[in-house]
């Protein structure tokens, strides 16, 4: 639907300093109806990629292609996209409601729809109490919340969010992730950048990973997890007896009355041995690495 094709972007601080590459031949696709996380450390090139997508800056080479729901080109796509930049700062002397109306009017939303949607989303994001107040009195979290209301007022099919969870308190983060999951379930496209792996893991099914301006991975989170699955199981046994001897054991630790064994591969004899010894199986889980651990592992 929206594809960045072989995009390269270099920056030069001033005329005399050497240029540095912010994006190096990066290609990825934002597919229709997908919830995609855009992952990378600070300075990995995420915001630069988004600025190129919206034509705020030009790439040195490469292009952005639009198709399907997004329309044929950027100008067609803009009416269907809701974009929230990183750390947004809105007109301080407008009220929250005025700003939302402004954004809605620019996308040709009728007044009744604007009022109805603003009320709905403002209540969802718990900012309805401050709609009549000037934005200059808003906290960082409130700015983020009114930003969300303003990008949802035209009921976009595609949401593109740059570090949307920064500046929100833990409750706000949870609420927003719930809303993003809800929007994704409606079949809308959600593409959001973050440097926090767990946030992406909670909301998205796919991930695009950037590392120092280069594409590290693009695909399903589940595939990435199973690809790097260690096949190690963690067996926790509750017994006051001595340590049991188990097959293929790779790690052992005693924690109070819990004996923690890590076993390479699922060995059914081990379970039988534990049960016959009279010990109680407290838990048996596959020990899968987190997305964060895998990202660290696949970095060059």
């Amino acid at each position, binding site marked *: 639907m929206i594809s960045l094709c072989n995009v390269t972007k270099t920056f030069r601080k001033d005329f005399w300093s050497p240029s540095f590459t912010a994006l190096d031949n990066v290609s990825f696709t934002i597919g229709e109806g997908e919830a995609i996380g855009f992952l990378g450390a600070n300075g990995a090139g995420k915001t630069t990629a988004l*600025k190129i997508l919206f034509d*705020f*800056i030009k790439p040195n080479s490469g292009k952005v292609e639009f198709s399907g729901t997004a329309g044929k080109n950027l100008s067609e796509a803009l009416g269907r996209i809701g974009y929230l930049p990183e750390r947004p700062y809105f007109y301080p002397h407008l009220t929250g409601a*005025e700003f939302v109306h402004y954004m809605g*009017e620019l996308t040709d939303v009728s007044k009744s729809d604007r009022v109805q949607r603003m009320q709905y989303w403002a209540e969802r994001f718990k900012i309805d109490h401050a709609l009549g107040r000037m934005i200059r009195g808003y906290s960082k979290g409130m700015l983020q919340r009114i930003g969300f209301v303003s990008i949802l007022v035209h009921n976009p099919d595609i949401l593109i969010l740059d570090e949307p969870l920064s500046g929100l308190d833990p409750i706000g983060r949870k609420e927003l992730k719930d809303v993003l999951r809800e929007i994704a379930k409606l079949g809308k496209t959600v593409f959001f950048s973050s440097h926090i792996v767990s946030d992406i893991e909670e909301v998205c099914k796919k991930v695009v990973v950037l590392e120092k301006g280069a594409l590290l991975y693009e695909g399903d989170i589940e595939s990435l997890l199973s690809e790097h699955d260690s096949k190690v199981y963690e067996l926790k046994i509750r017994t006051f007896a001595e340590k049991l001897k188990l097959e293929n054991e790779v790690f052992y630790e005693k924690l109070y009355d819990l004996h923690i064994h890590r076993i390479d591969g699922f060995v059914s004899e081990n379970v039988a041995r534990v049960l016959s010894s009279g010990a109680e199986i407290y838990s048996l889980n596959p020990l899968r690495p987190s997305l964060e651990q895998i990202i660290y592992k696949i970095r060059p």
Partner: protein
Amino acid sequence: MYNSVAKALIIARYTFIEVYKSKIMFNVLILGLAIAVLSFIAAEFTYGVPGRVALDIGLGLLSLSAVGISVFMGATLISKEIEQRTVYMTLSRPVGRVSFLLGRVLGMVLILLINILLLGIIICSVTIMFGGEVGPLFVWTILLSYIESIILLFIVISCSLVANTIITVISSLTIYATGHALIETMTFTTVKSNALLMKLLKILEVVFPNFSKLNIKPYLLYEQNLPHDFLWNALSYGTVYGLMMFVVAAILFVKKSLD
């Protein structure tokens, strides 16, 4: 085309609301008071022409106010949007860059209009109160001052798209002063006798705005009369130069990398 203008008008409306709420209009109240007080003080020290003195002070403060708004508000009108990333919110909607610029500029032009109109009414009232006369040339003076401030606004915006705020303010004020002094400089004997200098000034005359063409205050104060051709010529010059400067600002903004 219709859609682009409609979007520009929406942006202009909200720009006006935003700037209006920033209490810029207090400027009118303060300057209005200053005009009345200064005119009263000056009238005490002059004999026979207190109305003309009131008019002179009033028009001087009106120019100062219009130039101040154009330079100091114009310098951050677009650059602040880029710095604070508000521009990303607007340009990620179906709004072209030219529409955005036009909208922001129209909002400021409306603020300038209200500022000049209110001050014009205050000057008119104070002048009449001090026994002065206000004729059609007064309206022309106000109109041309307005055109001058719009041209300056476009120059400031163009500068702000290629330089930082301090350089923008300094260079805009330099252009403003040059625009007023250029024609006067060409009448100096030393300049007249130097062909090379004269040629250079002729080139500068084309490039820089000729603000002295739009400044008809001396005629209003001392002659109260000017041929219509001159006035229409000044108005046409101001309009064409203003449009040209808007095109320059639009080209710079379209080409600008918003990072």
